[in-house]
């Protein structure tokens, strides 16, 4: 039966929830929702939604058919089982995360669409499954994911490891693709919201109004599906669906230049209830910075500490499942006011940027600059670059320099492109010296495309997807390696294996490269000109070259010809 009717039913009759859960004691499907609000250093504000649905089933086991769905969206469940997907990560991002002003995001994503999938190792035709999967997902999310084909798909050997259970290492079962040109808008948000158990009718999702979400500096929505442990002992497996939505509201355009934010100002809504299907529904507000310069109302006694991205942060927690959170007005409108002085750039420990050097339409050079701002620790990073085939990389010109000295990567995986078939893939493990800037350069030549291969608006240029820098960054504080259920969602996405470092992925900006482009209004003129040249020039030259010239005998007058006729008969010499 339909999800919306279920919700409508439940919300009118709350006692039903308990009943239905009691009726199926074996199934422990669970839904959690969470919103983190972090006032940013620059005066902007960062809101990060996470919705987690746990599905207590293992359909990858032989002979198990799944036909009953409760909280987990059926459309995705079917896709997972049909294509034997082990892990699926898809993100749609509009905008570029400004690391220098905003710090690190909870879950990074590159501009445009990104999709990476680990298939189960029983899959025989991975490319076929991948092709079909992208088409199906393109339908589910109303996005142009069907433009993913072999020319922009790569199989990274080291950069994208599975985040869930299982230790797959064979990268033949991994597919990674980005579409940097993909525009994200309402039509992608609506299907994303429909995957939530409560839709956008109750809980935190009521805040997701597109007219506000797209009036922002940064918008990113993602779906992550992976197998996880059901409990600490890991006795049973469950599927986890995490839907995340990150948005940054701009101080000037959305905040009218005042460092004063409220839920209403950000989303034009306030919170009135939790999603009735959710086991936990919380709002976290980061109050670590300037506790004295910072004002948050209503105040809450609930504080929580979490170690996120190598930093210990303090959060005020608002539990939406408790009625007192909403106060007498029966609505929660958080109000933040702070007087910090923004403007100065941050110095995140790891930061990367990329640009195209040179001018003209023949050659160029891709520069990728990676900063290690740690004062005394060196650490290795994995750089992954996927460059379309129409930029023909000269891999012999690849240089890696740190502190104006050659820095030899300890691992290089390079797969050259095949014209019209597959892109370049370059993965390198580079050791970044402390407090340094490492520059990776490689020269390329621009290919001449066939005239049908140009995209619409060819003079706009061609996109090259972001390069991906993955690293274990040394942490300033001990990371929390314990796996506990009540950890906030935002700090539990990437499993932490050791206390001394944490995992960070940084995406650089995509590149826009102009290729030599013909003037597409010209074909008509060219055809006319060519035809004329061929007709006139070639015709007459051919004529000149093939014709043999002879001196023409002047023809004799009629009388002489007659005389000659008579002479020929008589057998005497002819007249001339």
């Amino acid at each position, binding site marked *: 039966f339909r999800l919306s009717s279920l919700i409508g039913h439940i919300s009118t009759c709350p006692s039903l929830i308990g009943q239905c859960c009691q009726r199926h004691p074996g199934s422990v499907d669970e839904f959690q929702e969470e919103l983190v609000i972090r006032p940013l250093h620059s005066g902007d504000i960062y809101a990060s939604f996470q919705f987690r649905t746990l599905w207590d089933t293992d359909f990858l086991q032989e002979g198990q058919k799944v036909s009953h769905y409760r909280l987990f969206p059926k459309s995705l469940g079917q896709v997972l089982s049909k294509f034997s997907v082990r892990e699926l990560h898809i993100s749609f991002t509009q*905008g570029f995360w400004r690391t220098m002003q905003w710090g690190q995001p909870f879950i990074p994503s590159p*501009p*445009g669409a990104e999709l990476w999938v680990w298939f189960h190792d029983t899959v025989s035709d991975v490319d076929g499954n991948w092709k079909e999967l992208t088409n199906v997902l393109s339908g589910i999310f109303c996005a142009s994911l069907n433009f993913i084909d072999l020319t922009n798909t790569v199989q990274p050997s080291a950069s994208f490891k599975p985040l869930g259970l299982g230790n797959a290492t064979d990268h033949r079962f991994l597919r990674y693709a980005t579409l940097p040109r993909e525009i994200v808008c309402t039509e992608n948000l609506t299907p994303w919201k429909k995957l939530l158990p409560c839709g956008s009718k109750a809980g935190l999702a009521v805040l997701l109004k597109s007219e506000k979400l797209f009036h*922002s500096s940064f918008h990113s929505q993602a779906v992550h599906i992976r197998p996880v442990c059901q409990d600490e002992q890991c006795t049973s497996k469950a599927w986890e669906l995490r839907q995340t939505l990150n948005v940054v509201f701009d101080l000037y355009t959305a905040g009218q230049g005042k460092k004063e934010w409220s839920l209403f100002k950000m989303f034009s809504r306030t919170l009135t209830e939790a999603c009735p299907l959710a086991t936990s529904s919380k709002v976290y507000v980061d109050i670590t910075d300037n506790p004295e310069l910072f004002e948050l109302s209503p105040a809450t006694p609930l504080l929580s500490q979490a170690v996120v991205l190598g930093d210990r942060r303090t959060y005020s927690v608002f539990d939406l499942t408790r009625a007192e959170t909403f106060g007498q007005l029966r609505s929660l409108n958080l109000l933040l006011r702070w007087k910090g002085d923004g*403007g100065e750039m941050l110095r995140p420990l790891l930061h990367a940027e990329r640009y195209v050097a*040179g001018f003209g339409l023949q050659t160029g050079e891709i520069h990728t600059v990676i900063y290690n701002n740690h004062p005394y620790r060196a650490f290795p990073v994995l750089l992954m670059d996927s460059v379309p085939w129409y930029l023909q990389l000269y891999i012999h010109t690849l240089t890696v320099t740190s502190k104006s000295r050659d820095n030899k990567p300890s691992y290089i995986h390079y797969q050259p492109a095949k014209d019209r078939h597959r892109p370049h893939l370059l993965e390198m493990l580079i050791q970044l010296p402390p407090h340094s800037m490492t520059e990776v350069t490689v020269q390329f030549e621009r290919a001449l495309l066939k005239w049908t291969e140009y995209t619409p*608006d060819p003079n706009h240029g061609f996109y090259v997807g972001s390069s991906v820098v993955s690293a274990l960054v040394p942490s300033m504080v001990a990371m929390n390696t314990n796996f506990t259920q009540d950890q906030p969602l935002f700090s539990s996405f990437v499993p932490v294996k050791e206390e001394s470092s944490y995992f960070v992925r940084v995406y650089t900006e995509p590149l826009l490269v102009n290729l030599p482009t013909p003037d597409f209004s010209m074909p008509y003129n060219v055809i006319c000109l060519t035809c004329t040249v061929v007709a006139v020039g070639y015709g007459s030259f051919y004529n000149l070259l093939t*014709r043999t010239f002879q001196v023409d005998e002047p023809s004799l007058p009629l009388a002489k010809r007659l005389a000659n006729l008579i002479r020929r008969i008589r057998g005497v010499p002819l007249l001339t």
Partner: protein
Amino acid sequence: MGLLSDPSRRKVLTGLLTRLNTPICIVCYLAGIVWFMGLAFEPFTLRTYMSENAMGSTMVEERFSSGERALSLAKEFDAHKRKAGGMPVEWLVKAMQSRGLEVFTQSFSRKLPFPDENKERYMVRGTNVYGILRAPRAPRTEALVITAPCSPGNTNNQAVALLLALAQYFRNQIYWAKDIIFLVNEHDLIGTQAWLEGYHHTNITGMEYSPLQGRAGSIQAALSLELSSDVITSLDLVLEGLNGQLPNLDLANLFYAFCQKLGVLCTIQGKLQRNDWDTAEGYTHAAQTMMLMVLKQACGRSWGDHGLFLRYHIEAASVRGINSFRHYKTDATTIGRLLEGMVRKLNNLLERLHQSYFFYLLPSLSRFVSIGYYMPAFGLLAVILLLRVSFPGLCHCFSVSLQPSSPGVLTVLTPVVISHLTGVALYLLPVHLQEMAVEHFPVSETEAVVLTAIAIYTAGLALPHNTQRLLSGEGTEQGWKVLKLTALLYLAVLLGCTALINFSLGFILAVTLVPITASITPHMPKALYALVMVLLSPAFTILYCVFIYQELIEAPVSVSEGWMLFLSVISQGILDHALYGSLVYPLLALFIYPCWLMFWNILFWN
């Protein structure tokens, strides 16, 4: 084309061409000049129109209103500029930061090959300050640039202030799709050059600069702003860039459209548009405007900060505020609105500007002459050179010279090589010999360079005598004909290539070089023809251009002032080559002058 395959008719044609060679050449020359002058006649030109779809129908509504604030900001900037004795870097950084931009600085230094006496600089050290307005939800792939030079003295304060006011206004808008870079550059073109080289990580002119920290993807278009007074009477659009490159015509159309919309008087080459094309004055006015454009384009220098952007395939133009004492005044708010409108339209672009023309001449802002219309004028001049190749006697000597017994090859090669060596000397020596010249003569470095150049140029005139000495025996009749044939073909190729890249330069050179080179033989009265040749040599062409230019901008000069201007033009040309990579000086020194020397050799052929 039956003409070619029919031997008798072919004979008639060649006979006609040989017999009527001189009259045909004269007609071609006159027709070329008349055609060119006719380009300024309004019925022969096309009306400009917006080709780019993305900028056409979507008229934007301008709301910029802080012109007054910009003016008070200009006073503040002026005060800080005075206090800092140059560019107030810290103040600018703070001002941009407080407006919500990401601010970066770039320091650069450049030692000029010799002191620039016009701008009084030799060792140049400076800092560029630029702020990037990050477009919301854009992936940093495209950018627009607005630049205002921080000039010494009182000038351009209003431009910088308006830039800051626009930045503040733009920052509060949500509709940006491209990042906008606000650049305040020091030492005008040198700063721009350093910034552009830093942005594209190239080094083509030996500039020293610190690498840029912030970038915003590929730059789609740039506007340079020059304002020196609180109110202006008209806005002048400057298009001519380095090496005669021009931005896409749509950029000019965009400017014109917004001037029309906001009722701002707009000029090009400082000349207002007139409506009376059918009167003699109207035509003269259009012709003057076009001539000014041709002269400016021909000299190959960048006539504003925008000119250097063109090399990087960034469409750019300078907007210059003029305050002459007309009644009609425009305030800073209106100029701000004009810029706002232009930037918003550029922001709407889906592709780089490419729809409209890149090769054009403008007799007025609303009329243009496209390449298809002006090229025949040059073609008529160039065809003379080809016709002269078929000059009686010159034609068959070519086949003669190919025979091994003929002395042709050596007699031709020697003058060719020697003229080119002179050209190389003219290119290299002036800058390299300046120290020696300064030691031995009481001149400054700049004078030394210019005077050395003139000396070498003049010394080249003595070449025929020296060439003759090198040759064994006397020059034969065949010899000069082969040399002339070579020289004519060489000049035709040179001018043809030049005109394709920089029409104006090619045309001006053709006008002066073609008549004399077409008619020269050793049998002419030597003294008279020598005088004519010298008067039509490339150096004198530059001198005439200086006078004509001064005449056209309504600032006529006396002979001595003209001479001083001529000297400074030469030094500027050499500097432009060294600083920005302008190609006019090497073209003249390495190719045109040696080619002219070859003809000079023919005149003195013994």
